[in-house]
């Protein structure tokens, strides 16, 4: 960007030097004097009554300080439940998690007791000795089965297994479908697994009896949420709890959630009067950290002879897990996003959230959007195939043209605001992606490959995704008398370079020296309110607040400097740590001096009647989501004998508005793409019929590794959004959203000689082979 100092540049990250030399401080790196270690006793059953808990044997082990059950925590609890669900009128039942299991466990991994000992080793020894007497109850594992007549109840006290039900839509769907000339319906199974950040969760809590202060270091994405829930559960006031987020080794959604372990660790520290650490291990992560899981869709599209969409309707069953750990937003997102990039005259979706005896479901990077996009793109591929229209052409005919933006959809967001697609050029993105993958030349390549016995395929998928969810993120910018610029924010950093990004934004307006800026995030004591890192929101919310705060501080600094330098404000510029008169570099004053001038010296008036303090706090309010968009285009080769899918090329062209740092944006998109590839071809969180998890380690649950990962070619468009002063949109989830749709489209295309249609994610090698064998069997019979 011309004329900019650091904004928009590939500035090196400020986070890196510490992380590259082992000086980062993650929660498990915190070592305190007297600190003791926690492990949890967890339910081994999907569903059971607890008849009794015998702690004697565990307590007799040397080095064990305590074993606490809900019974033991009760005296300290103002509210026994973690009330975290985002509000919605569609709930049929409210099921909040208890701090520890009460008399019934409802999923494998549910914490039943916390054991504290000298080392984690001993805590694990003792946890194994806690004798819990269970009466096993029937468990419900499959969310479709959960809704059947006579299904076992996930909670024995519930009337049924429906957690929530809602519908959404617009237009005269039924009459349109009645008269439509072409209707195609599909059943789809979509599954996503856990976040599997390489750092698991963790918490360290300290209780200070003098100040009656609880300090919680937590690997969370939302310090203020944790603080507010603790205030509610423990009946404390705002000044008695401080939540600090250290370095976080990846979040991806589930770390937004406040957990039973967090409150248990806090109370164990209080009861024992010693700092307590709990570092989640990978097996715990698999069974007790929230995850995304299954959605079953029955959907139908109506199109005219030219492939113009007439309407789309359907229903979806969503696996909610055993409790509400965040709300219904995930299923809502999936249903909301389906029709968005396209001109869909009428739409209807009915959604049921079913309770199962599995760990609660909450958003993972992408938050339901990949599923919704998959539905739309699969239906378009189907329609294209049936009508003999090219897959790109049918999209061209239906994408919302850029001239029509802003475009108001007939749908409402979770906050009941209309969905307005703000800016972008969807068609141009698609054309660019097609160009890069040579979509037009592909059929020839495919024909050639087939002659060599190779099955290659190309696929593409368009997406939009709402980002930058409000309402706000507070940022304070302050210049101290030292001249150092401090930036405080309720935002949370978990690998998305929040610090660098805020620094670039602030530095741009305050001298351009990134080294002169110190960013403090993730500490509930530095700003009063905060939302944290989710829904690709931080650049939008915190970034906008930072911009406004920096601009206000700049104005103020210039005003004071003008007074000191006896110059006019317009003639001044900020360069590094100085404010100087343009063209007269010697006429200058240091930022620190300027800050000092308004710091307030007893008996002296502030210059020019300016308010004291060189600082500004801003809460830029966001009402509307800003929509990123893009297209993924993928070329794959499928080995029909083994079912292996390999990538020949992976292109993603996307538009996330103004770019603060292209290097960071690229990193986010490629990282998201890897997650999407994992979801499509590798990751599967399996449970058996009794709701026992069967993939609980990294040998069973496969993350994509470097050799399987293609080089991702990126294309950028920049349509700044009018909705915030930076023009930025969120980027953290861009890569993941179109991946399943594009990859499956390509695989289906590669296997077109076998007339295979695919409506599922993940798709694993044995399933591909089976589909091919089925085709061959059917054909040999027919032939």
């Amino acid at each position, binding site marked *: 960007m011309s004329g900019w100092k650091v904004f928009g540049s590939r500035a090196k990250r400020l986070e890196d030097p510490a992380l590259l030399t082992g000086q980062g401080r993650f929660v498990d790196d915190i070592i305190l004097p007297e600190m003791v270690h926690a492990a949890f006793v967890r339910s081994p059953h999907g569903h059971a009554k607890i008849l009794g808990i015998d702690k004697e044997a565990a307590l007799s082990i040397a080095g064990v300080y305590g074993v606490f059950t809900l019974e033991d925590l009760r005296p300290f609890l103002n509210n026994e439940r973690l009330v975290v669900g985002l509000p919605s009128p569609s709930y049929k039942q409210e099921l909040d998690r208890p701090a520890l299991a009460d008399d019934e466990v409802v999923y494998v991994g549910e914490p039943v007791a916390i054991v504290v000992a000298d080392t984690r080793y001993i805590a694990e020894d003792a946890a194994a000795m806690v004798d819990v007497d269970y009466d096993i109850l029937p468990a419900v594992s499959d969310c479709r089965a959960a809704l059947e007549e006579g299904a076992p109840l996930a909670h024995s006290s519930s009337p049924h297994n429906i957690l929530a039900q809602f519908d959404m839509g617009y237009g005269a769907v039924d009459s349109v479908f009645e008269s439509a000339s072409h209707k195609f319906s599909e059943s789809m199974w979509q599954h996503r697994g856990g976040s599997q*950040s390489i*750092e698991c969760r963790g918490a360290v809590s300290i209780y200070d009896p003098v100040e009656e202060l609880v300090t919680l270091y937590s690997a969370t994405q939302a310090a203020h949420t944790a603080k507010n829930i603790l205030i509610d559960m423990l009946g404390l006031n705002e000044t008695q709890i401080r939540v600090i987020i250290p370095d976080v080794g990846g979040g991806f959604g589930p770390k937004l959630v406040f957990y039973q372990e967090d409150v248990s660790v806090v109370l164990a520290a209080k009861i024992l009067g010693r700092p307590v650490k709990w570092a989640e291990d990978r097996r715990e992560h698999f069974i007790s950290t929230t995850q995304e899981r299954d959605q079953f869709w029955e959907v139908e599209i109506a199109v005219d002879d030219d492939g113009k969409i007439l309407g789309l309707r359907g229903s979806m069953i969503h696996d909610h897990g055993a409790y509400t750990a965040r709300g219904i937003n995930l299923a809502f997102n999936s249903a909301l996003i389906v029709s968005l990039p396209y001109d869909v005259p009428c739409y209807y979706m009915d959604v049921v959230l079913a309770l199962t005896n599995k760990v609660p479901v909450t958003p993972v990077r992408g938050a339901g959007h990949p599923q919704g996009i998959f539905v739309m793109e699969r239906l378009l591929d189907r329609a294209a195939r049936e009508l003999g229209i090219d897959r790109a052409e049918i999209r061209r005919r239906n994408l919302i043209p850029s001239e029509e933006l802003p475009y108001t959809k007939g749908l409402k967001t979770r906050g009941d605001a209309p969905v307005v697609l703000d800016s972008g050029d969807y068609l141009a993105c698609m054309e660019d992606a097609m160009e890069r993958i040579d979509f037009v030349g592909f059929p020839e390549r495919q024909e050639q490959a087939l002659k060599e016995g190779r099955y290659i395929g190309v696929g593409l998928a368009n997406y939009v995704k709402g980002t930058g969810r409000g309402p706000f993120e507070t940022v304070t910018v302050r210049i101290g008398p030292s001249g150092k610029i401090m930036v405080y924010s309720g935002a949370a950093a978990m690998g998305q370079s929040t610090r660098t990004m805020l620094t670039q934004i602030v530095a741009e307006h305050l001298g351009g020296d990134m080294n002169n800026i110190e960013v403090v995030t993730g500490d509930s004591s530095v700003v009063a309110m905060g939302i944290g890192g989710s829904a690709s929101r931080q650049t939008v919310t915190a970034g906008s607040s930072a911009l406004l705060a920096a601009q206000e501080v700049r104005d103020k600094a210039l005003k004071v400097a003008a007074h000191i330098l006896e110059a006019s404000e317009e003639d001044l510029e900020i360069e590094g740590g100085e404010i100087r008169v343009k063209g007269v570099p010697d006429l200058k004053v240091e930022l620190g001096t300027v800050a000092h001038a308004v710091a307030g010296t007893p008996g002296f008036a502030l210059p020019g009647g300016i308010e004291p303090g060189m600082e500004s706090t801003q809460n830029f309010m966001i009402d509307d989501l800003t929509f990123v968009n893009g297209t993924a285009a993928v070329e794959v080769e499928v080995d029909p004998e083994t079912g292996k899918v390999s990538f020949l090329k992976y292109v993603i062209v996307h538009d996330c508005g103004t770019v603060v740092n292209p290097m960071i944006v690229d990193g986010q998109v490629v990282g998201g793409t890897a997650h999407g590839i994992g979801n499509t071809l590798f990751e599967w969180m399996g449970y058996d019929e009794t709701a026992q998890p069967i993939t609980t380690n990294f040998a069973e649950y496969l993350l994509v590794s470097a050799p399987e990962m293609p080089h991702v070619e990126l294309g950028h468009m920049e349509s700044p959004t009018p909705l915030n002063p930076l023009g930025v949109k969120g980027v953290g989830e861009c890569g993941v959203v179109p991946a399943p749709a594009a990859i499956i489209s390509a695989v289906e295309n590669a296997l077109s000689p076998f007339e295979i249609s695919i409506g599922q994610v993940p798709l694993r090698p044995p399933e591909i082979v089976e589909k091919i064998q089925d085709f061959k069997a059917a054909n040999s019979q027919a032939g």
Partner: protein
Amino acid sequence: MGESRKISLSVNGKTYEEEVEVRFTLADFLRQQLGLTGTHLGCEHGVCGACTILLNGRSARSCLMLAVQADGQEITTIEGIAPSEDEMHPLQEAFRDNHGLQCGFCTPGMLTTLIEFLGDNPDPTEQEVREAISGNLCRCTGYQGIVAAALDAAQRLREANGA
């Protein structure tokens, strides 16, 4: 405390004499007992690679070794890679320049593994780099920045060695 032993080992060039529980993994010993928390634990079953250290110059999972097995050995961790406090190793520089890390949790294992690999293979192809880090999972980067950093570092190291 369970059975313990006295061990003596060198970590990042410094000699330590320590009493350690025999069931302690090397990773826990480095992190908890020596305070060298730059080595991370991501799975404790040998798959993620975050805990990788150099054992006598060879990359190894520190979650799959007992601390007592390091008696008499030389260990290098991420804290010991840089030549000095204010200078980073060319691989570390390349990671920063190529955005080879986001959250930084996998980074210790990536760096140690690649240091060994670039010693074995100073002029690798992209595919060879990808295979070299097949035992190191990263959830943030999609590996692209890491692969770029490794290739960049290989070139820097070759140039530094006058190749």
